[in-house]
């Protein structure tokens, strides 16, 4: 079986990700690495969703952190102000994000070109401003603390617990995304990416398909946002900020647009690198930029697709 076929096989891919989640802790020198692992998985979840939108349907969202913010503040505001259980707020947040994506996307996705990018940019900023200004509800720019996740008396506490919660959810997110790609909807989305006009004359309702995948990707981001808030126990409007949105887009591009595996790799690189580079102190940001640029120059298709292509070519020789 070729590497490409292997990467695209749903069962193999799910098993591979599950194996990564299970095996990784054996190499952790300290408990701190569980924290990094959990963060990687949480961001990877949001990136998988965004990759469905960007890599498969070919639409760019520059405000995806807005949905991250909605998810995060749902599990903060719900329990603190309304006494709702956290797990219920997590689902409510995802549904709210989906509804907001529907409202934002419906008028825009009928248009062609980069209107979605511009509109989502505005949407992301709007969410961040609302979260900053509605201080009574959100605590303003200082943010608010988030009560921990509790299920039937069991409380999710500690980095290792969250490592497993995020890991299991990520495997689930992978499976759903891979399922989608191997279905009528998935084929339609990829078709739209390559030629909207050809997709339309084959009976595909382009605007509706784009809206569907936009809603799905928003819900992925929302769940990731809820996890982030529950894990950290504290949340600030920065979670929904413009930089976060750009970071998510960078993770998609770095890992590889259209590569579900790339989502995990892209998230891992951009979460782990800043941690590793802290030893360089003030040069950290500059080095980070340099490395990302290097990746994009030498692995233009993104890390996973480029390496897969290189390996396939090398095998043929």
């Amino acid at each position, binding site marked *: 079986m070729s590497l490409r076929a292997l990467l695209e096989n749903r069962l193999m891919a799910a098993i591979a990700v599950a194996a990564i989640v299970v095996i990784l802790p054996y190499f952790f020198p300290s408990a701190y690495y569980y924290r990094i692992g959990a963060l990687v998985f949480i961001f990877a979840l949001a990136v998988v969703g965004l990759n469905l939108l960007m890599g498969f349907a070919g639409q760019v969202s520059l405000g995806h952190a807005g949905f991250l913010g909605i998810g995060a503040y749902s599990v903060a505001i719900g329990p603190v102000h309304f006494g709702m259980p956290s797990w219920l707020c997590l689902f409510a947040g995802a549904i709210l994000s989906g509804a907001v994506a529907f409202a934002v996307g419906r008028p825009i996705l009928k248009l062609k070109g980069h209107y979605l990018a511009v509109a989502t940019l505005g949407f992301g900023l709007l969410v961040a401003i609302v979260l900053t200004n509605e201080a009574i509800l959100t605590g303003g720019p200082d943010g608010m603390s988030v009560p921990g996740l509790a299920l039937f008396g069991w409380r999710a506490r500690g980095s290792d617990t969250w490592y497993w919660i995020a890991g299991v959810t990520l495997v689930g997110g992978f499976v759903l995304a891979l399922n989608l790609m191997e279905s009528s909807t998935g084929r339609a989305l990829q078709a739209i990416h390559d030629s909207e006009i050809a997709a339309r*004359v084959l009976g595909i309702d382009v605007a509706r398909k784009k809206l569907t995948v936009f809603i799905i990707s928003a819900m992925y981001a929302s769940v990731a946002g809820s996890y982030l808030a529950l894990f950290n126990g504290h949340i600030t409007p920065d979670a929904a900020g413009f930089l976060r949105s750009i970071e998510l887009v960078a993770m998609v591009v770095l890992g590889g647009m259209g590569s579900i595996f790339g989502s995990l790799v892209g998230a891992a690189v951009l979460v782990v690198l800043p941690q590793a580079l802290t030893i360089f102190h003030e040069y950290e940001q500059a080095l980070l930029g340099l490395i990302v640029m290097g990746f994009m120059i030498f692995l233009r298709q993104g890390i996973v697709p480029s390496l897969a292509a290189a390996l396939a070519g090398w095998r043929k020789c």
Partner: protein
Amino acid sequence: MLILEADRLSIAFGGVRAIDEVSISIASGQVFSIIGPNGSGKTTLFNLISGIYLPNDGSIRLAGETVTGLAPDRLARRGLSRTFQNLQIFSRMSVLENVMVGRHRHERTGILADLLHAPTVSRQNLATREAARAALARVGLANDGDRSAGSLAYGALKRLEIARALASEPIVLLLDEPAAGCNPVETQEIDRVIRSIVKDGITVVLVEHDMRLVMNISDRIHVLASGRTLTEGTPEQVRSDPAVVQVYLGVHGSQEAARAFD
């Protein structure tokens, strides 16, 4: 029975009347060709019929129902499919996957079933793949299904587009210059494919510059010149119409031609 009718279709682009009161009626099971010099509005007429452009005036009926102003995807779901003069291939997908997209209007699973990979999705994928393979075999690409679409030769891509449109099981198929840029062997292959399509009762509307192909295969030919109907008739009638010769060769050219034949 008339399967496709256009009644006094008109469209103008910034004052230029690209199509000016053109009417066509196409009987079921025919090969109906639209010819004319460059810029006479053939592709524009195709774009009007397939819903890509909205006509300023006039109406279109498909299988007896008025479909004027319907979006391309709605028309496709009513059985009108088309190919493109400049190829519109899904180049990131495999050859087979391209044709599988053509089955979209026959696929029924909802988004939840797709996400959860319900048993219906597996069954549907299987059926879609089978139908796509059959469509590929019809255009002679049975062995190329697993190749990346971008790696096919030009003539094969032309046939791939036809297979993709065929997979949607259209009642009317619009082919926009299927033989353009093809060598004689490839053109012959297209000829064979079109004949087999018609044999299945699919009505073919053809825009084509290759006159040998057009004259060989058409039941009726509609001639456009500067966005207007010049004439319509059987290949013999059109071939011997002095007005047709004139628009193709110009007044001077047609005099030369007449002298040459004397």
